[in-house]
């Protein structure tokens, strides 16, 4: 009998040598005269175990990881194809791995189980059930279901998705658009990428449902250029979905239509801001627009437009299939449903962790993460991307929900958690926040464009011990100006990591930095 062996094909698995492992498995099995069927599945999100090889047995799928190509002969010698557990890399049944079993997966229920591009796999695992239901409902009923779920924008702003959809539904227009923001630029985040690479049909399904809900017939997925694999997977998925009638002029024989196109960004962090993204989609410089008008009223090409993050749209098929109430059943306070934590940086067991809102940050870092990768003490954690606060130990018991985080002067954002051990220099980190803003500012408003440049200079003066007190006061004022005067979150939130570093790790700013070492830390061409 031919044994099915799974080797993931997402960016993380590939970056850790999954292609070599797959090839070695095929070569070795052939040499041994053993038959195997290789499936390139998506990733389960246990990045620390990648490449995670799975073997189908009568007793479920057996897992091995992290597997290197050089481990393959010994694994085969020790019964990998029979699912035996003799080799040191054997992890037992994949469903029993605590790191995975202890999650609550609504959105990532299929990730890693299926071949991402197989429509049959998707359908066999509840795929397109949400769409089938939506096709039987009127537009208002779909919007009501999303409202009932309590879903809030997963890009970071946490605006209620149902209300946004209602605004677009109520806006009269010949042409409306659904735009998916897949410009996942925050360091420490990769959940959007995992949706696109491991379960792309789910995103397509969510967007078609959104189109039916608000009366839009055209969708765009704006994917950052740093994700070429995501673009390829989506384009292939769109082609196959069109051929099967899940996209196009006649959705499943309903007479309704929805078309979808992938657009690639071009390496601009600011295009993750929705109005800048729309400018970019229109073929312009990605400069932020003034609001109002809201994109829901005047968005892409001046038409009413839903702009939603990948994770928001990816949550929709579950909500339509199981009902808004089933989604809203879990969570904490006004944060309903699940949060997709991406545990990254200096962490032993990093990856994608989907949990109901309300667990503590510490629980995730300790029980899932297992502490730092280096084994040194954890010192600071940046949650919510490059515009998120650096949290000291006193804040690690914060509950992972939007309100608890904003109450603690912190940001949950897109769910990225980046851990730093005690070798971190928080003054370096604060300087980098300003430097990043300087590199990525769209330039439209002065506080962000000039403020970030001045911010780098002022932090350098503090670190070189030049009029330290006066410059600390100046930095405070500068941050205040950026917060109050910037047009969008880029300029107004860059002070958050800077000031959290200053508040919680003041000693790091007292060390005087030698000018020569500073120059070598400078990232730009000298």
């Amino acid at each position, binding site marked *: 009998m031919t044994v099915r062996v799974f080797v993931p094909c997402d960016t993380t698995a590939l970056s*850790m040598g999954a292609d070599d492992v797959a090839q070695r498995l095929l070569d070795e099995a052939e040499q041994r005269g053993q038959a195997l069927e290789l499936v390139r599945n998506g990733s389960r999100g246990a990045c620390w175990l990648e490449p995670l090889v799975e073997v189908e047995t009568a007793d479920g799928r057996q897992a091995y990881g992290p597997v290197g190509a050089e481990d393959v002969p010994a694994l085969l010698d020790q019964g990998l194809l029979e699912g035996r557990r003799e080799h040191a890399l054997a992890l037992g049944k994949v469903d029993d791995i605590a790191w995975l079993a202890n999650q609550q997966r609504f959105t990532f229920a299929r990730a890693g189980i299926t071949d991402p591009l197989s429509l049959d796999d998707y359908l066999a695992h509840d795929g397109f059930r949400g769409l089938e239901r939506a096709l039987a409902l009127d537009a208002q009923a779909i919007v009501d279901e999303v409202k009932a779920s309590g879903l809030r924008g997963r890009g970071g702003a946490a605006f209620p998705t149902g209300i946004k959809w209602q605004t677009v539904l109520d806006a009269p227009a010949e042409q409306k658009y659904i735009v998916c923001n897949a410009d996942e630029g925050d*360091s420490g*985040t990769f959940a959007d990428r995992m949706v696109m690479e491991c379960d792309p049909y789910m995103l397509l399904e969510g967007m078609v449902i959104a189109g039916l809900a608000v009366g839009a017939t055209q969708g765009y997925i704006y994917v950052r250029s740093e994700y070429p694999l995501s673009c390829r997977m989506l384009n292939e998925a769109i082609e196959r979905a069109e051929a099967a009638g899940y996209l196009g002029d006649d959705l499943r024989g309903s007479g309704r239509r929805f078309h979808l196109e992938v657009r690639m*960004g071009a390496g*601009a962090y600011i295009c993750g801001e929705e109005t800048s993204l729309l400018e970019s989609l229109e073929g312009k*410089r990605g400069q932020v627009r003034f609001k109002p008008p809201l994109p829901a009223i005047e968005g892409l090409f001046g038409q009413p437009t839903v702009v939603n993050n990948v994770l928001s749209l990816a949550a929709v098929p579950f909500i339509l299939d199981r009902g808004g109430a089933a989604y809203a059943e879990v969570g904490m306070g006004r944060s309903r449903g699940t949060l997709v934590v991406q545990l990254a940086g200096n962490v032993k067991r990093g990856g*994608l962790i989907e949990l109901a809102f309300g667990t503590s940050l510490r629980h995730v870092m300790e029980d899932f993460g297992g502490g730092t990768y280096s084994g040194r003490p954890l010192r600071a954690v940046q949650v919510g991307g490059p515009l998120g606060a650096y949290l000291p130990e006193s804040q690690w018991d914060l509950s992972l929900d939007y309100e608890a985080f904003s109450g603690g002067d912190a940001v949950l954002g897109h769910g990225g958690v*980046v851990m730093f051990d005690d070798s971190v220099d928080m003054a370096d*980190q604060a300087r980098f926040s300003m430097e990043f803003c300087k590199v990525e500012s769209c330039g439209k408003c002065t506080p962000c464009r000039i403020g970030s440049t001045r911010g780098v200079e002022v932090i350098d003066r503090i670190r070189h011990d030049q009029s330290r007190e006066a410059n600390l006061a100046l930095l405070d004022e500068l941050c205040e100006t950026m917060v109050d005067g910037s047009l969008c979150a880029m300029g107004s939130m860059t002070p958050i990591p800077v000031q959290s570093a200053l508040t919680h790790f003041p000693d790091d700013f007292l060390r005087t930095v030698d000018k020569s070492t500073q120059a070598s830390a400078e990232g730009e061409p000298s």
Partner: protein
Amino acid sequence: MSASLEWTPAQVQDCIDALKHTPGALLPILHAIQERIGHIPADSVPIIAESMNLTRAEIHGVISFYHHFRTAPPGRHVIQVCRAEACQAMGGRQLEAHVKTRLGIDYAATTPDGGVSLEPIYCLGNCACAPNISVDERVHGRMNAKRFDALVDELSDSLHTQSLEVK
């Protein structure tokens, strides 16, 4: 990289004509030109402007806004090093320094033999396996100085073979 130093206005015109009727066509067109030629030559700007009924300033403004678009031919290989926080937490700054020393160039530069261009990048989305670099758009996780040197040796071997083949 199938980049060639030679390009013709007809190639540019082809890219434009294939896409100019799609809404918001400029970025797709610029991507197509860079994909085809390896960069967006300065002399292609007037062609794009004319075809799109835009000014040269507008085209230049768009090209220069986005980090991804390059106006000069890259080296035969492009190495991008992630400078963002998750990689910093795993020794990214030391890796950056090593990469620059090993290649003997800074960011936004190409080695004198035209073999490798070095670019900074802000997140490759592989943050649980940091630090990361990409070589010709392929991400390599858990990078360190030793593995980087091995990768560069491999690239120089392939470059050497290529130049022998040309002869």
